[in-house]
């Protein structure tokens, strides 16, 4: 670990926009319906619309596909099978070398001979309209040979269970064991060794805009242009080029407005890759927009973990050890290129993260299933490791008789102990667990709330309070994916240019998903250069026009993309000041750029406007001194190098009421205090925290992809898959502690996932706090439905 010293120049700039709730510059455009989502892009009447024939079976061999009737249907351009598409592309395998031993089978855009989950696209119909394509898709006749479906992770490795991919030998995708310290010795020393099993249902991210891609292959230029609502345009550019055997500069990926992503749109979906292939095959534009029904069976699912967790604690409250044994069933393949091993890996890496303890043992087992693919979704692994950790901490509180807040205070890492390493050896640069918890307890008035809860219990009203401390991975370096061989950019770039009227054009590798990235980029750019935000033009999401970058995932866009913008902005300011100095026959060091005007640095007196600098540099360079060439474009790149991640931390609390007769849970209040370092935009950070909490509450109370034993998803629609809705949600109060990272000048860490990380744990602990006086065993099986609550209470 390195002691870093940051230069916080950007926080000291005059007229700084950092830390201000600047409204989103793109909000009016979206509010007026003038956004450009993929489905808004029209490429004319030659465009084909794709609909996919999806497997009705979880596991079945394709004996034959009869496409004759479909080809003859009105408006049909082509019907394409896996074997035809396989002639023009190479399959992929979703493994990373740093997840040692992870295996998966080659996956094609459409499978060659076997469907391995219900909903897998197995043939494509391209027609003049989506409706005609759907009509024809019903006419594709497939002769299926149904095979036994592997649907229970617990028996996936049994000798008599069908092996999904015979070439792999078994259904084990990956197993990781980790051992630090001496858990057995800790158990011997402890006064209490408590074991609980926690279950996390499969759920998914439901984006307002479904997945969509419009691919246009121009054979005359050998150029593939795709409009794609991806989170990472350069990654998709690389993948399309690699697997369709094109040079990378022959592929352009454009991601304009994106209607929510949450990690759903960061993956290589076979149907999207197939759509690009259809365009190449047919030499015409092909559009595919997933509908709501197919989204549920083809957008990645996540979580689906069963974790046996153990905590060892002394009577004085000292936590000595944690242990977990985690089992997860991913889909039939590991997702490409990020793999489906990361969620389990995160759990192993991050268990117990907020606390000081020396002994840790973990096993994670990842098995293949004949269900939809699983992969990274908002706060990968975090809600699981947090709920297991915090559930066990509450068990320890019950066993020792210590107040849950007091037990946490005694074990949370001290705020003056950084830098240091976790029990698993991960380095922490600068966290604030104690201060965050203190601020949380103050915000909720913990003691008064406990008194209220206790008084209400006397009157038969059953309320509970739950706490959860957490750490969160943000700003990942190349240690996340790059070291494992994934061609995913950890760095990000920004290019800034002064135009002839003195306005500033900003192109960034970070992408806008609806989260407000354009606002954050504009604040950083405006501050770094010294112009008001309205003089900026922000361009994102176009591999032809933005610097190479990773895009938006793992809470990296503000911290990494923002820092690149800060550095590019400062470089551009210095270039502008050199040009101004040449014009004014002044030392550049005596000048500054503030509010779009070059001023005397000492007095602030106005010297020359940016419009005048632009005019002279572009139209009258003849008037500049001999030998002076104005350079008014600056590009900078940034990647964290010293720490693998910028960990953030925080604490959440839930206050809820359980209706013991109906099993219904009413969320009354929710608090979150989090520390994402420098807060660039308090409004947007709070929106991220609240939105994240909502998705965490969804997993805790509502969301579950329900499968039957044959691998059929039973609730693949918006009526039966319960996303959390406003009426059921509590007020959410956000607070912040700011411990900036010294890896960057900006000091910003990520804020996009902290809400999702801690909310399920807080709700679980609050629920069990409410149920405990009623003699119910702790509920640890999410989502906590009325049925589960009634059963725990013995009412049914």
């Amino acid at each position, binding site marked *: 670990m390195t002691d870093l010293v940051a230069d916080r120049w950007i926080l000291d700039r005059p007229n700084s926009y950092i830390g201000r709730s600047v409204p989103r510059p793109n909000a009016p455009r979206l509010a007026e319906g003038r956004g450009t989502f993929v489905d808004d892009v029209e490429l004319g009447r030659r465009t084909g619309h794709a609909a996919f024939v999806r497997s009705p079976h979880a596991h079945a061999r394709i004996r034959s596909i009869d496409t004759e009737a479909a080809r003859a249907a009105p408006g049909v351009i082509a019907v394409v099978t896996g074997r035809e598409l396989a002639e023009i592309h190479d399959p992929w395998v979703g493994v990373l070398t740093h997840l040692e031993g992870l295996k998966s089978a080659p996956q094609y855009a459409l499978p060659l001979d076997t469907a391995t989950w219900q909903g897998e696209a197995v043939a494509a119909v391209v027609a003049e*309209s*989506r*409706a005609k394509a*759907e*009509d024809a898709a*019903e006419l594709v006749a497939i002769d299926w040979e149904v095979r036994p479906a592997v649907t229970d992770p617990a028996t996936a490795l049994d000798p008599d269970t069908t092996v999904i991919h015979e070439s792999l030998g078994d259904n084990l995708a990956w197993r990781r064991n980790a051992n630090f310290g001496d858990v057995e010795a800790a158990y011997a020393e402890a006064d209490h060794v408590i074991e609980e099993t926690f279950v996390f249902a499969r759920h998914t991210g439901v984006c307002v805009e479904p997945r969509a891609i419009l691919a246009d292959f121009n054979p005359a230029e050998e150029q593939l242009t795709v409009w794609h609502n991806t989170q990472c345009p350069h990654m998709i550019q690389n993948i399309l080029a690699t697997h369709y055997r094109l040079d990378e500069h022959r592929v352009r990926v454009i991601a304009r407005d994106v209607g929510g992503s949450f990690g759903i749109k960061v993956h290589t979906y076979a149907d999207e890759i197939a759509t690009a292939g259809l365009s190449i095959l047919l030499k015409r534009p092909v559009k595919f927009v997933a*509908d*709501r*029904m197919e989204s549920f069976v083809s957008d990645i699912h996540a979580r689906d973990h069963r974790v046996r967790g153990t905590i060892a604690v002394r009577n004085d409250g000292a936590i000595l050890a944690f242990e977990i044994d985690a089992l997860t069933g991913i889909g039939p393949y590991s997702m490409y290129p990020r793999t489906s091993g990361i969620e389990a890996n995160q759990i192993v890496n991050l268990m117990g993260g907020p606390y000081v303890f020396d002994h840790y043992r973990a096993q994670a087992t990842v098995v293949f299933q004949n269900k939809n693919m699983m992969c990274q979704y908002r706060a990968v692994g975090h809600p699981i490791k947090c709920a297991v950790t915090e559930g066990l901490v509450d068990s320890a509180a019950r066993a020792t008789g210590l107040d849950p807040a007091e037990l946490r205070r005694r074990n949370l890492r001290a705020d003056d102990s950084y830098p240091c390493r976790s029990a698993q050896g991960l380095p922490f640069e600068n966290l604030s667990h104690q201060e965050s918890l203190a601020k949380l307890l103050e915000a909720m008035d913990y003691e008064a709330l406990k008194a209220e809860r206790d008084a209400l219990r006397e009157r038969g009203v059953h309320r509970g309070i739950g706490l959860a401390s957490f750490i969160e991975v943000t700003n990942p370096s190349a240690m996340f994916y790059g070291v494992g061989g994934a061609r995913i950019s950890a760095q990000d770039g920004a290019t800034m240019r002064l135009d002839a009227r003195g306005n500033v054009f900003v192109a960034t590798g970070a992408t806008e998903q609806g989260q407000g990235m354009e606002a954050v980029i504009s604040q950083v750019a405006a501050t770094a250069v010294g112009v008001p935000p309205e003089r900026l033009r922000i361009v994102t999401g176009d591999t032809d026009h933005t610097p190479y970058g990773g895009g938006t995932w793992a809470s990296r866009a503000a911290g990494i993309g923002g820092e690149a913008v800060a550095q590019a902005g400062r470089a551009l300011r210095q270039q502008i000041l050199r040009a101004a100095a040449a014009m004014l026959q002044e030392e550049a060091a005596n000048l500054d750029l503030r509010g779009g005007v070059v001023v005397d640095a000492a007095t602030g007196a106005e010297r020359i406007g940016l419009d005048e600098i632009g005019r002279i540099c572009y139209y009258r360079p003849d008037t500049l001194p001999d030998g002076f060439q104005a350079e008014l474009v600056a590009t900078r790149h940034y990647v964290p190098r010293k720490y693998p991640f910028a960990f953030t931390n925080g604490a959440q609390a839930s206050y809820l009421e359980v209706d013991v*007769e*109906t099993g*219904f849970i009413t969320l009354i209040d929710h608090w979150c205090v989090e520390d994402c370092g420098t807060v660039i935009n308090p409004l947007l950070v709070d929106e991220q925290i609240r939105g994240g909490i909502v998705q965490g509450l969804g997993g805790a109370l*509502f969301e579950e992809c*329900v499968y039957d034993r044959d691998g059929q998803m*039973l*609730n693949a*629609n918006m*009526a*039966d898959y*319960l996303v*959390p*809705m406003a*009426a*059921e949600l509590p007020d959410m109060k956000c607070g912040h502690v700011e411990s900036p990272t010294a890896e960057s000048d900006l000091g910003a860490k990520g804020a996009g996932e902290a809400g999702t990380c801690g909310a399920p744990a807080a709700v679980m602990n609050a629920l069990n706090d409410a149920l405990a006086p009623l003699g119910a065993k702790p509920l640890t099986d999410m989502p906590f*439905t*009325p*049925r589960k609550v*009634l059963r725990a209470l013995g*009412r*049914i």
Partner: protein
Amino acid sequence: MKPAPFAYVRAETLDDVFRVLDERGDGARVLAGGQSLVATLNMRLSAPEVLVDIGRVAGLAGIEDAGDTLRIGAMTRHVEVETSELAAAHTPLLASAMPHVAHPAIRNRGTFGGSIAFADPAAELPACAVALGARMTIAGRGGSRTVDADSFFRGLYETAVGPGEVLTAVEVPKIAAGWRSGFMELARRHGDYAIIGLAAHVQVDGGRFGGGRLVFFGAGDRPVSATRSAALLEGEAWSDALAARIADELKEELDPFEDLNADAAMRRHLAGVLVGRTLAPLAAG
């Protein structure tokens, strides 16, 4: 999620409707507010040859004071019932049920008659119709006939509306002196179809119950009037013991289904909870 191809006829008169129904038989579906039908079309759960839109047929919409009853036209939008002073004054059960019917956007388009004719066993309005003893007016080529709510709902999505016929209005008796209504449902999220719900319409006199109806939705293949349980009320004042007797009787009387949210045992249990919570305030006055 594009529907299979279908033809569309905008009817101007009921005769237009009958003509299409006669010509196309089972291939024709009547389109009212479309809030259930269009979703099933888009999901390709149904693929009629032709939709007959009754939105422009005169005389099908509106709430009318017809003496002892309110006559609610089949094309009356939910929102009109929800905000109707007549409904609030004379059919408090409907008024209290309306906010639970889906969401405001759906209530702006969806129709009272559509909900009754669709006969979803988990929907609020069929249960209210049974509880209040409403009468359905069904029109056909040969004229109109009236069917009691009890015999209107015949099973899962099945009603007394025959081939070539259309539901045109529902006659809902006004609440009589000494009668009280209560409505409650348990839905995972507000606006969802309820796990189970209760429409209660009972006579209360001097703190004692007279006759009345306890009609459950989400409890069977149609609205379920728990007559044996309701009979336990007669002549009784409200008490915990009475609540327990009714809850026990409901466990015998109800034969609910299992779905993702609840099994039969849970629905029976919740039915007892609903009765307690709905009737206690009615008894209190």
